[in-house]
């Protein structure tokens, strides 16, 4: 997937416009981004990332949360937690930013075909998974049973509420299991951490699991899956690290002999155990 930056230099962003802003939670907002001509900035595969630059503040990389089958725009759900994201959250619809990409590898769609799938997301970790979930929903028959386990700290932190409450539960053979960490009012769903919830759901181990969320959640979820008999090469996850160039040259996201922005961010778990634990 050669990237589509103009005059073929991978570092130079294109001018893009924030078409629409949807506030998901108090610190997560979803941006619909189109290029200067109102069209989709570039083609991508589920799991790939885009580098959003706001001159003169800086640049940061975000996983694209809309499905590749969405033609008009790309969507990024961004949590407010740093200089670039703070500034992004102040922008209103119609303001211009720079965008370049796509970067990184993608969820291996071929391996997922006609298999039962488990998507396990935590907090903002649902954003990268939503891209592949929506892709699966748009080609529903190619895939087996789908289970979505998604948890966050409080009900207010659950992102993409439209999808998780209305759209996905109505899909064919799809169960959505939601949980929040602590008891909170007007929440009658499951209470508890995602890894424990996964353990209690006790999926049988012929499924493929895709996990994404804060590192602590990934660690315990992988242990839970292992106890249920999931082998390492049945589980995929994305690594979050500082990425600057996006093309595997600037050395920031280098762990072991891999570059997360080029050989990742999606890794199979047996590949991850080979990497030194510095992520």
């Amino acid at each position, binding site marked *: 997937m*050669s990237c589509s930056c103009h005059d073929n230099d991978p*570092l130079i962003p*294109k*001018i893009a416009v924030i078409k629409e802003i949807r506030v998901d939670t108090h610190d997560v907002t979803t941006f619909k981004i189109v290029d200067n001509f109102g069209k989709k900035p570039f083609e991508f595969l589920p799991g790939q990332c885009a580098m959003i630059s706001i*001159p*003169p503040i800086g640049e940061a990389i975000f996983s694209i949360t809309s499905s590749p089958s969405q033609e008009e725009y790309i969507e990024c759900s961004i949590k407010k937690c740093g200089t670039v994201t703070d500034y992004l959250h102040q922008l209103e619809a119609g303001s211009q930013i720079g965008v370049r990409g796509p970067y990184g590898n993608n969820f291996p769609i071929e391996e997922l075909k006609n298999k039962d799938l488990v998507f396990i997301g935590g907090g903002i970790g649902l954003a990268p998974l939503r891209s592949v979930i929506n892709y699966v929903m748009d080609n529903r028959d190619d895939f087996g049973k789908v289970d979505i386990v998604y948890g966050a700290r409080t009900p207010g932190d659950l992102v993409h509420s439209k999808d998780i409450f209305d759209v996905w539960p109505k899909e064919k053979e799809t169960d959505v299991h939601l949980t929040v960490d602590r008891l909170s009012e007007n929440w009658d769903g499951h209470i508890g951490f995602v890894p424990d919830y996964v353990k209690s759901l006790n999926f049988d181990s012929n499924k493929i699991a895709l996990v994404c969320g804060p590192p602590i959640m990934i660690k315990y979820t992988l242990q839970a899956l292992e106890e249920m008999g999931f082998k390492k090469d049945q589980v995929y996850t994305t690594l979050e690290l500082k990425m600057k160039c996006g093309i595997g*040259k600037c050395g920031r996201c280098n762990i072991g*002999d891999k570059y997360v922005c080029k050989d990742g961010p999606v890794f199979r778990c047996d590949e991850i155990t080979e990497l*030194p634990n510095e*992520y």
Partner: protein
Amino acid sequence: MKKILKSNLPELWQKISADFDLFLPLEKNKTLNFSLWKEGEKVNLDRVRTNASPKHLVFPQTETYLKIKNENKKLSFKAVKAKGDQYVLFGVRPCDVESFKLLDNIFLKDPVDTYYKAHRDRGTIISLGCTNPEDSCFCSSFGIDAGSAPKGADIAAWDIGDSFIWKAQSEKGQKLMETIEELFTDIDEKDLKNLEEEKGSIQENLKDLPFNSLDLSKIKGTQQEIFDKEEIWNEFSERCLACGTCSHLCPTCHCYDLCDYKGSSHGEKFRCWDSCMSSDFTLMAHGNPRTSQMQRLRQRFMHKLVYYPKNHEGIYSCVGCGRCVEKCPVHIDIVKIIKKLGGENNEL
């Protein structure tokens, strides 16, 4: 193969700098660096190693790649093309020529870095045999022959006493030789004998260098085992100042940072060198995976001795130029680390 007398070198520089930017090892304020030759500058070809490597010619320390205008919320981007005209780089030692190849392995691999490629294509590199290597040189342990010229050099040159022998090795080198044909004379038997003698004496000098017995194959163990040798990494990082001298001086260090320059209503995006030894190299919004200096030091030397070879058919990301051995304020260098990892536990 042609010969030129040392006496008419100034004339040669004059001729080359007529239509090329000529970079030579020049001595300014008591330090030797590759810089643009101008009439009357003091060229010093005896000292074997320039202070800083010629890396800044192909990978400048700061390079603006995008100009941005931001008038009332309307952005306009203007890409900045790599500029600069053709240049000739004379006096590059075999280790620095080899370091260009190591940088090529990173920058010219798909997706190609257009800026680096432009700087590389504009240059004609003339390597010079190492007449007297310094104590801290150890290029032989990386298979670099200080006497001959690596394939990456467009022209190979040797100092045979009263004159230099030039041998074109690439068509770019051949083209340059033709433009300066008349200053050169053909070589005869005596010169060839001198050349062999010179190469022999270089090998002789190499033998009694303190680090000539450095053997990298002694580093045993998988990536994880070497990674887990914590007491070695702790011992070195205890005195490390996290200053970044080693990575900015090293001809094969290629990490960079993309930064923004904030003007009044305009701005610029530029690329600049960065060092994995500095504390904010991997700092991100939700934390820093490498908080201790031991982790940063380990990353630097693991990258050079384990990770880079794994991605590039066993080639180490070091050319043994010895600059880190000389200039580290607390004398941490890759030679000590290779020895310690190789199990030689002379008390370090």
